[in-house]
């Protein structure tokens, strides 16, 4: 089942990317990133059947990182929302070049 799971992971990852590119809402953007991370986890796990448990160890780390990222990201979104009353990414462009 290795090939199929890798294919699935690729598809999920691509859907995540398409989501990131198309959606303008910060929250949904975050979720798409989460989806991409999950896709990666899947491929980790799939390959761990071949290369041993280190794959799964990495999945754990990925999850922790994802959790940390989500926490901080959401905190930021909340701070922005409180300040600008919107989560539209296009309106938040203070860092214009």
């Amino acid at each position, binding site marked *: *089942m290795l090939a199929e*799971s*890798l294919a*699935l992971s*690729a*598809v*999920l*990852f*691509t*859907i*995540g*990317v*398409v*989501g990131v*590119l*198309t*959606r*303008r*809402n910060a*929250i*949904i953007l*975050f*979720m*798409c990133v*989460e*989806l991409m991370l*999950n896709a990666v986890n*899947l491929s980790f*796990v*799939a390959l*761990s*059947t*071949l290369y*041993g*448990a*280190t794959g*799964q*160890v990495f*999945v*754990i*780390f990925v*999850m*922790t*990182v*994802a*959790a*940390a*990222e*989500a*926490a*901080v990201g*959401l*905190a930021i*979104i*909340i*701070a922005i*929302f409180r*300040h600008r009353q919107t*989560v*539209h990414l296009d309106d938040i462009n203070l860092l214009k070049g």
Partner: protein
Amino acid sequence: MDNTFHPLFYGFHFYLFGLIAIASAILFVTRKSPVAAALWLINVMFCLAALYVMLDAQFIGAIQVLVYAGAIMVVFLFVVMLLNLGQPNDLADVRGTGPRIAAGAVGLAILAEVMVLARSRIPEGYAPTAAANLPAPAADAAGGVIAPVAGPLFREHLLAFELTSILLLAAIVGAVVIGKKQGAADAR
């Protein structure tokens, strides 16, 4: 191991959960309201958990459900509720048709490349050494399912483990500081 005994059953379930995962992922991306999107994402996560279990990563499957779907997605939902973003109508969320087509094209491009790479020969440098090709981490009696994961976690990757813990700590402090009320920050 399992597939040797009941290939059909194993294969069927595998494809079942795969398709469900893809469908819900597509639906997740196309939903207007963040809440619906979140729920579809949780669904994807459950399918993945199932796949993990089928791939002999039972611990990871449990963690997936427990941490990912349970904790992180709950936080997302919580934030959505907190900021009252639920109304789908006022958010012209999705970009115009032009960017969407472009995004689709990019997605296809990535898929195509991955397919090409998948078929290409794995260069000799990266091929798995014979030693690594030992049988799948059989659930030996003593450690149960977790032992094959816990062993390397606390032996080779101890440092990484400690670092992630520090990372989590930092994230927590960060989230608290950023999330604090605006007024308190100005008081300093």
